C-alpha cells in the first residue's frame, strides 16, 4: 500500500508542477515588452490602432482575469482561441480575422513533431545499444576507439552544427535528402520518411552520444566485476556473458539516459525544426513567442512540460517499484 501512496503523491506533485508551469509562462509573457497587438502591428503600431486591437483581443482586461478564464477553459479541455488568428467580436467592432481554435492550430503540428520524435527514438534505441556493447566489448580494438571518438563528437558538437553539417553534405552536395522537410506535402510514406531523415538523424546523433557514454561506463564496471570475470573463466562464450550477464545490469543507466534524452528531445526538436523548416510544434511555438500569442504559447508549453513531467514521473515510479529503499519517499 506504500507504493500506492507514493504514486498518489507523485501524481499530485506533477499536477502542481503543471499549474506552476502555466502560471510562470503566463506571467513571463506578461512581463515581456509589448503584447500581441503591438507585435502584430509592428511598425504600424500607433496608440489608437494598438488600443483598437487590444480591445478586440480582450487584452485590456486585467491579467488575473485573463489567466483565470484561460485555466478554467483549459482544465475543461477548451484551449481557447489564438489572439492573432481569432479576434473575439466586440460590440460594434468588425468581426475577427479567421476563426481557428488553439486545438486546430496545435494538433497538426504536434502530430508532426511526435512523428519526428518517434522516428528519432526508433533509430536511437538499437543504435545506442549496439554501439554501447561493441565499444565496451572490443574496447582494445582500433574501430571501437574510432566509434568512441565519434560518440564523443556527437556529444560535444552542438546539435545545430550537426544539423547544418548534415544539410550541406546530404541535401546540397549529395542530394540524397530534401533540404526542406515539408512533410505535410509528402505523397507517400517513403517520401515522408526521407523528409524526416535528416532532422531525425540530428536528434539521434545527440541522444546516442549521451546514452552510449552513460552505458559505456556502467558496462565497463560490470565487465570488470567478479561475477562476470567468473562467468568468463567458467568458459561461457563471450557473447553469452555479454548479453545475458553483463548487459541487464548495465541497462539501468541506459534507461535513465533514455529518460533524460526524451526530456532533451522536447527542446531539441525546436532547434532542428527551425533548421530543416519542419512544420512542427517547435516552429509554431517560436512564431507564437514572436507574436506573444499567449493561448498558443500556453498550450504548447503545457504539452511540452507534460512530456517532461510524465517522463520524470514514470522514471520515479519505475525506480520506486524496483528499489525498496526509495518506496518510503
Amino acid at each position, binding site marked *: 500500500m506504500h507504493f500506492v501512496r507514493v504514486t498518489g503523491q507523485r501524481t499530485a506533485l506533477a499536477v502542481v508542477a503543471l499549474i506552476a508551469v502555466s502560471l510562470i509562462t503566463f506571467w513571463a509573457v506578461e512581463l515581456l515588452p509589448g503584447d500581441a497587438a503591438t507585435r502584430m*502591428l509592428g511598425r504600424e503600431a500607433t496608440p489608437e490602432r494598438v488600443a483598437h486591437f487590444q480591445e478586440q483581443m480582450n487584452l485590456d482586461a486585467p491579467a488575473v482575469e485573463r489567466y483565470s478564464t484561460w485555466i478554467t477553459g483549459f482544465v475543461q479541455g477548451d484551449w481557447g482561441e489564438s489572439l492573432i488568428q481569432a479576434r473575439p467580436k466586440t460590440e460594434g467592432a468588425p468581426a475577427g480575422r479567421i476563426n481557428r481554435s488553439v486545438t486546430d492550430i496545435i494538433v497538426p503540428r504536434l502530430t508532426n513533431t511526435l512523428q519526428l520524435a518517434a522516428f528519432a527514438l526508433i533509430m536511437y534505441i538499437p543504435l545506442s545499444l549496439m554501439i554501447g556493447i561493441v565499444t565496451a566489448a572490443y574496447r582494445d580494438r582500433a574501430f571501437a576507439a574510432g566509434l568512441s571518438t565519434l560518440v564523443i563528437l556527437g556529444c560535444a558538437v552542438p546539435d545545430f552544427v550537426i544539423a547544418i553539417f548534415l*544539410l550541406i553534405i546530404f541535401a546540397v552536395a549529395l542530394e540524397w535528402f530534401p533540404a526542406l522537410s515539408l512533410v505535410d506535402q509528402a505523397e507517400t510514406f517513403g517520401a515522408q520518411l526521407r523528409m524526416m531523415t535528416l532532422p531525425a538523424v540530428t536528434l539521434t546523433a545527440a541522444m546516442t552520444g549521451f546514452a552510449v557514454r552513460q552505458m559505456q561506463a556502467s558496462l565497463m564496471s560490470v565487465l570488470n566485476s567478479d561475477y562476470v570475470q567468473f562467468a568468463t573463466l567458467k568458459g561461457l562464450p563471450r557473447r553469452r556473458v555479454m548479453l545475458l550477464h553483463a548487459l541487464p545490469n548495465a541497462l539501468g543507466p541506459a534507461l535513465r539516459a533514455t529518460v533524460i534524452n526524451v526530456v532533451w528531445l522536447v527542446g531539441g526538436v525546436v532547434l532542428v525544426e527551425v533548421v530543416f523548416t519542419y512544420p512542427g510544434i517547435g516552429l509554431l511555438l517560436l512564431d507564437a513567442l514572436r507574436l506573444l500569442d499567449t493561448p498558443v504559447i500556453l498550450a504548447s508549453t503545457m504539452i511540452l512540460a507534460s512530456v517532461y513531467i510524465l517522463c520524470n514521473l514514470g522514471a520515479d515510479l519505475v525506480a520506486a517499484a524496483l528499489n525498496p529503499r526509495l518506496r518510503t519517499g
Partner: protein
Amino acid sequence: MSDNESKGIVKRTLSRRKFNMIAGGSVLLAACGDNGDTAQPAATTAAPAPTTEAPATTAPATTTPATTTTIAATTTTEAGATTTTAAPRPLKTLRYGYHAATTSADTLDPAYRTSSTDGLFQTLVSEQIVRLDENLTPTPHLAESWEANDTGTEWTFHLREGITFHNGKPFVAADVVYTFQRLLDPDVASPGAGGLPGLEPDGLTAPDDYTVVMRLTQPNVDWPEAITNSHTRIVPEGATNADLAAQSLGTGAYRIDEFIPGEISTVFERNENYWQPGFPKVDFMEVIAIGEAEARLAAIRQGQVDILSEVPLASVDDLEADPDIEIVTNPIGSQSVAYCQIDVPPFDNNDLRLAIKYATNRPQHSDLVYGGRAHLMNDIPLPGLIRFGLGGSREHDLAMAREHLSRAGYPDGIDLTLTMAEMQDWTVWCPVWQQQLAEAGINVELNVTPADTYWGDQWLSAPFAMTGWNVRTVDHGLGLWYHSEAEWNETHWRSEEFDADLAAARSTTDEAERTRLYHKMQQQIIDEGGHFVPTMYGFFSAVRAGVTGWQPRGVYYTIDIP
C-alpha cells in the same frame, strides 16, 4: 479526358492535402498576376515539363470514374498517358521560395497588410486600380484611364469592364468606393488610412458602374501615385474582415479557397477568369517560406524551389557559379539607414551631421557590406533611378569631416551611441560604418537592443538609431519622412518652407516646376537632414534553369513597408 474536366477535378477536390497528391514538384514557368504585363514575354520552359500520368488517388471513391491528373516530378520522364482517357494538359506549379518565415499574423486582407509577406500574398490575389511600374511611375491597372480637374482636387477614374472577383461578383465602381471607405473607417483601424491625405469617405462617388470620382480636400496632382500605397487593393463591396481573412476575395491572377496563416507552404491556384490574356502562366503558385538561410540556399540548389525571392548578397557569387541557377536583379531595392533626431543635442548641430556624412566611405561600405553590389546613395532614402530622383553621392573626405567636427566644437573627437538590433544586415552594416566614422574621430558605440521589440521600443524614440526603408516614390517618401506632421518623421525634420514646397509640388501640373521643387527639397535633406544613407541594395533573385518569363518586380517591395 478534356482539359476542362481535369481542371474541374482540381477545382472540386483541391485542398491542401489533395493538392499535394496531384501537383508535387514540377518544372515550371510563370509570371504572377501583377507582374504579368511587365514580365518578359514568351514564358516558356526550356523543355516540356517532364511528367508522368497516374490515376488520381484522391478522387472520391464513389461514382467518379477513374480520373487522370498529372503528377509532375523533376526527375521523372515523359511516360505518356497510362489510363484509357486522353492525357490532360500537364499542370504546372511554380514553387516560389520566399526569404522569410510566414507568421500566424499574415493576412490576405489588404487593409491589414503589415509585412512584405502579406504584400506578396496580396499581390497574387488582389489588384489596385493604379499601380507603379519599374520606375515607380503610375500606370493603369483595374482603371483604364483617369483625368483630373485643373486644380488636382477632383479625380475621375474609368474602370475596366468585364472583370470578376474570385467569388464571381462583377467588378464595378461601388467596389472601389467601398474599398477606400473601408480603409478610412476608424472601426477598421487600417494602417492604410494615413496614406490617403485629403480623401474623406464622402469624397468618393460612383456616377456609374465604371466611373469613380474622388474629391480631395487638398490638391494633389499626383493622386494616382498616392493611391498605389500598399493597402489599396480592391475588395468586393460588403466584404467583411472575416470574409477577407479566410479566403482570397480579389480580382488577382491567383486564388485560394482556404487561407491558413503561418503555414510553411501556401498554394494558390490559377484564377480561370483572370482578365489579362495569357496570365497566369501556371496552374499553381506555391509559396514556400523558408526562414533559415542555409535551408533556403539548399532548397534552390537542390531544386526544391524554382525561384528564391531574395538571395543574401554574400551568397550571390556562389549561386551564380551554379550552372542550373540564374541570378536576376532588380536594381531598386531597399536600404538600411541610420537616423538622428536633429532637435536633440548633439545632433542639433548640422556640422556634426555633415562630419558624419563626409566620414562615410560609400564605395568601401558597398564593398564590405554588399560585396560591391550596392548602389551608392546620398543620405536620403531616395535613389536617382526613380522619377524626380536626384541621385549623386557625397565623396569620402576625412579632412572635411574633421573640419566640420571642429566647427561643431569637437576638435578632439566625439563619442556617440547608435541604437540597433541584430536584425536585417545591421550586424555588418553598423560595424563597418563604425570603423569609417572612427577614422574621423567620431567614436560610435553600438547599443544592441532586442530585435523583437525594436520597432516598438527603440525606433522613433532613440535619438541616434538604425532604421530601414524600401524605396518609395519621391513624393511619397518626402511626405512620409520629412513633413512636419508625418507619423514616421524619425529625424524630426520640421520646416514650414519644406511643407510649403511639398504642397506646391503637389498642386502644380508644370512638370519642370515640380522637378525643381522636388530636387530642392531633396538637396535640403542631403545638406542638412538627419538621415545617413550610404548604400542601397537591389534585390537578387535566384531562378532555376528551365524557368523563364519571370522577372522580380521591386514594386510590391519598394512601395511596401518592410
